[in-house]
């Protein structure tokens, strides 16, 4: 009985960590500009696809990973330069819609550059399941947990301890004031896209051995990541992690103890319930608008 519970928990943690890692990517751009970047899932896909195709073509994995990360960053920079920056005076909502357009474009481009097949990567440390009290966990899941933990620590350090990170936060709070005190606002936005593309690529690379990847893998990861980020509080790294884990564990427990038919419904009910009482998410700052 306990073994089954533990297995449900591991299942939930595995899915949850994947959602969390996807959710983290939304934080950076949101913090810099209050824009929700709906192309975040595509950054994840590009990271996974680029690494998988390079590895399949014989490039050693330790070379393929940094190359894929750089490629993804370049896509992020290009997206900011050619799609977002020309509309910099537009509403946040307009820019969000632009990111949706960019995501469709990137999916189409991936379909042409690569193909429509599924691709996989070998697991980083083998495929021998780790047995814990009758339940099993794949070593790759531990990689996902570990990378998520490292990413959140780095994000915290970046936003709280570095000048550039603080400048980014400052820009999101008041663009004009930030500009007046000497923050290069344009550069901040560009850097935020580059960083979140990089983060997306990292996520895509570690989850590919578990979920596989293809040109539209970003849709699901983006959507679940977005749910995780909203549940945890947009722009908050810890929030995205907790949000992702809650969604993942809720899904697994629902399929284990109720029925797999209800698993998505249960996750959404939890999200709705939380947002009903805490509209800015579990860890989000209460938003106030001055009239």
């Amino acid at each position, binding site marked *: 009985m306990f073994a*089954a519970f533990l*297995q*449900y928990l*591991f*299942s*939930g943690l*595995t*899915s949850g960590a*994947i959602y969390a890692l996807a959710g983290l990517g939304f934080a950076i751009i949101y913090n810099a500009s209050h824009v929700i970047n709906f192309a975040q899932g595509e950054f994840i896909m590009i990271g996974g696809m680029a690494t998988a195709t390079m590895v399949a073509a014989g490039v050693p994995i330790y070379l393929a990973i940094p190359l894929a990360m750089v490629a993804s960053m370049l896509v992020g920079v290009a997206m900011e330069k050619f799609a977002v920056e020309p509309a910099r005076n537009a509403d946040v909502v307009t820019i969000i819609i632009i990111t949706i357009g960019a995501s469709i474009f990137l999916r189409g481009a991936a*379909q042409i550059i690569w193909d*429509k*097949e*599924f691709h*996989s990567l070998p697991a980083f440390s083998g*495929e021998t*399941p780790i047995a814990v009290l009758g339940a*099993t966990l*794949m070593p790759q899941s531990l990689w996902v947990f570990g990378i998520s933990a490292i990413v959140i620590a780095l994000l915290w350090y970046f936003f709280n301890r570095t000048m550039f990170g603080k400048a980014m936060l400052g820009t999101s709070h008041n663009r004009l004031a930030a500009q007046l005190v000497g923050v290069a606002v344009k550069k901040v936005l560009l850097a935020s896209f580059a960083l979140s593309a990089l983060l997306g690529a990292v996520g895509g690379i570690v*989850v590919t051995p*578990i*979920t*596989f990847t*293809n040109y*539209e*893998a970003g*849709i*699901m990861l983006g959507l679940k990541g977005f749910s995780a980020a909203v549940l945890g509080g947009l722009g908050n790294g810890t929030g995205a992690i907790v949000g992702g884990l809650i969604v993942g564990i809720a*899904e*697994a*427990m629902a*399929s*284990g103890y109720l*029925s*797999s*038919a209800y*698993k*998505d419904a249960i996750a959404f009910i939890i999200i709705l319930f939380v947002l009903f009482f805490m509209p800015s998410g579990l860890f989000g700052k209460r938003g106030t608008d001055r009239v």
Partner: protein
Amino acid sequence: MRNLMKWGVAAVVVAGCSTYAGLANAADPIKIGSILSVTGPASFLGEPEKKTLEMYVERINKEGGVLGRKIELVVYDDGGAGEKASTFTKRLIESDKVDLLIGGSTTATTMAAVPLAERNEVPFISLAGAVVIVEPVKKWVFKTPHTDKMAAEKVFSDMKKRGITKIGMISEDAGFGKSGHDQSLAVVKSYGIEVVADEIYSPKDPDVTAQLTKIKNAVGVQAVFNFGFGQGPAIVTKNFKQLGIALPLYQSHGVASKDFIKLAGDAAEGVRLPAAGQVVPEQLAASDPQKPVVTAFKKDYEAAFKSDVSTFAGHAYDGLQIALAAINRAKSTDKAKVRDEIEKTSGYVGTGGLVSMSPTDHMGLSPSAFHMLEIRKGDWVLID
């Protein structure tokens, strides 16, 4: 004013063309219209289908065509969307004035086109799987692929042979998997098999160990059957091995491609699934009438496109052959005559199996069209 002139001229030209098209003579091409999901989520179906149709139409034209007339193929890409399929079918019938329709890569796009084909009385050969396309029988609609019901029957008869009476099912909660799941439940009882656990997953779930744990703990379960396609079945197979479940695992014909073995890796060892002869041409018995057909098709396709042949490409090949044979027998492209001849198709040996249609069976495949395969050492092994 000049614009008006231009339109006027255009209108006259168009009108002229259409009256010309009305007076079909022997030199006119035979027009075959096709709606396929060349892009979008079902592109793994539509793309090989389109390539196959184009390759064979070109070849047949080089050899002189059919009834001394060339074939003209008009393909529209519906991107997997039903409403687009419907619009394009309308265009094919009304402005392209096609003699026959082949296509509808998915059940959804096919069903969107069915009412139009029926209303305009155009013969329509679908390339999609679900049984609803031909059951109940629709006068103008035929199909070439196997149904999910046949796949389920093949799996259950193999289970019965192994003495399995209690199984767990895990199915994808969308299109193909859902239909397969429902068809499975409809026929499972007649094989004396009881479904003791019935779980589902969403097409893009990253992990299904929770569902599999539940199945593993179901009382008396002797085998597990997974209905789905895409990456889902590969994840199910990997999770199955992760949990160390020592039961036979069955997959559906939806994953009968080398990609599945590649994705699932070692975990795929011992997995059984039903598949058409097209998947294993070299393993078919020499006496199998399908052997020369599937061997030749595999050779043609792989030489032309440098990629592995898929059963989906075979469905398009069968559709085209059945259609052209019917036109040949009808000695015209008169729609009603062609329809009657398609219905009279008998003993056609295709990539999908032996096809003999009748007024009550617009698919015509016998159950023997499916073979049972097992995955051993990363390759298919023909079981029966």
